[in-house]
């Protein structure tokens, strides 16, 4: 289950809406993978002017390989989207803390925003395998930014889709439909933009149920050595620390993340100035 650095051959590159799905031959990473973990991909080759790895949720895996699904948002993702089968990528994974599965079967709600849906598909599969009914809510800005709806429909008991512009599913945000989905639910899981996670964690807490959120902070190393990926998280001792999301996250209990203080160092954080 420790992470490994591997040379992974690209097996398949497919366009899916606004996303590109890369399937990579990486059995060592696949062997240890759990839902919510991520992989860090080097970009641009060995003399690349892009020094930092790009991190992507593990969107799926089997004995032979892993899949990541990416949105092209900058130079590194553009480079990755240009890869072809047979190309070899330098990949580190599986990284980070996975979603925790419930100790016994209970109904779970999974909320994904944009490419935040990626880790929810393997999570849904794992929950179903553990006997948990699964309700999913997937939202995006528009239809082409929705991800994994078909896969979700195969696995989940119910799937609710929202788009900001109404181009697919219900017009609005996933957080609008969430309250109606919480009856009889054990745990809420979420992955997506920070504002969405904050809303989900708040709604879950309001309904008196635990949530687990996978956050996304800029990461320089992905392996815990650089301290760029921190956010204020409350520890078991009740004290807030600037916590590495690559090592201690990306999944945190929703009630531990100080969402209102992300992007700041709260005055009560350990070591605050």
């Amino acid at each position: 289950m420790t992470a490994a650095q591997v040379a992974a051959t690209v097996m398949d590159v497919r366009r899916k809406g606004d996303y590109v799905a890369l399937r990579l031959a990486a059995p060592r990473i696949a062997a240890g993978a759990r839902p919510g973990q991520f992989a860090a991909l080097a970009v641009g080759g060995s003399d690349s002017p892009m020094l930092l790895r790009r991190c992507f949720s593990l969107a799926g895996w089997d004995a032979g390989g892993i899949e990541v699904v990416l949105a092209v948002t900058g130079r590194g993702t553009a480079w990755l989207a240009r890869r072809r089968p047979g190309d070899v990528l330098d990949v580190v994974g599986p990284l980070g803390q996975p979603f925790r599965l419930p100790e016994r079967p209970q109904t779970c709600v999974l909320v994904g925003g944009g490419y935040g849906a990626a880790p929810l598909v393997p999570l849904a599969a794992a929950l179903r395998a553990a006997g948990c009914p699964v309700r999913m809510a997937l939202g995006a800005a528009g239809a082409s930014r929705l991800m994994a709806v078909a896969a979700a429909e195969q696995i989940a008991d119910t799937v609710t889709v929202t788009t900001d512009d109404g181009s697919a599913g219900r017009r609005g945000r996933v957080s609008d439909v969430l309250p109606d989905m919480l009856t009889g639910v054990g745990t809420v899981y979420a992955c997506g933009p920070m504002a969405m996670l904050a809303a989900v964690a708040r709604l879950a807490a309001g309904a008196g149920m635990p949530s687990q959120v996978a956050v996304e902070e800029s990461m320089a190393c992905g392996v815990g050595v650089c301290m760029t990926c921190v956010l204020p998280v409350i520890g078991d001792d009740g004290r807030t620390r600037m916590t590495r999301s690559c090592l201690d996250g990306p999944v945190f209990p929703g009630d531990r993340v100080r969402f209102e203080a992300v992007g700041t160092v709260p005055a009560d954080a350990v070591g605050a100035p």
Partner: protein
Amino acid sequence: MTDPAVRLDPAVSLAGVTFRGPVFTASGCAAAGRELAPYLDLGTLGGVVTKSVMRAPRAGRPTPRMAETASGMLNSIGLQGPGIEAFLAGDLPWLAERGIAAVVSIAGHSAQEYGELARRLRGAPGLAMLEVNISCPNVESRGQVFACSAAGAADVMAAVRREIDVPVFAKLSPDVTDIVDIARSCVAAGADGLSVINTLLGVAIDTRTLRPVLSAVTGGLSGPAIKPVALRCVWQVHAALPTVPILGMGGIRSGLDALEFLLAGASAVSVGTAIFADPGAPARVQCELLTALAARGFGAVAEAVGVAHGLTAPREVVAYGDEL
């Protein structure tokens, strides 16, 4: 990790302490080593230079703390860390138990704080050497960075020197008009050697938000982009102080990069930002460096130090097969 074909003895000596190899991790780029263990055998390296530790725990700067730039990156971590107590309780023993040489980097806001840190480290098991990060604002001097003032730097080095008897290296900033002036001042105050260089101050602007990328506005520039500046600093310091050992760093990502530093006058090197691209980089760089030294006929790492200054006859242009 060392290529068995390499007959070269990898050991290097810095100010009288022998290290297993010429390559170290750079401070702040390897935490205290533990997180890198899945990716390389830390025990083959010269040692781990730990993230600069301060007296008290420190939360660091708000995010965003980094920006990628052309062949470089900016960081403004703000020395987040657990403080010396937790460091002595957790981090240092982890290295000591595994027989990994620890070069402990310390940082403070006054000469007195540095001295106190050195005192706390006195006799700590596993401690091989101190690296003094003087790129911190001096609260007693209107926030001027110690490394930017010969007097400020000397105060710190003297305060540390008094408290401890392992070798002490001063880590110099390139952001000065005359780095040799600072180097001399540190050595005169008792530094056994010099770490060259820390990051360059830089800025990046986000053209979407129209604001600085970093919450702290400025950050430290590192990575291959700065290698020429780092080599220049090593060159100048070695030319002026040829007997003072230098731990060279700045943009190293291959064995040939490291070789450039030795030839310019460094006795050993640290690998920093390259770790983010390749967590196994320090071991890979060391292996490539030793192979490159052997290919060039060097019998020991120390033989290559400062060779580019030309005290020996120049070589014909030769292809060693490791250039591409």
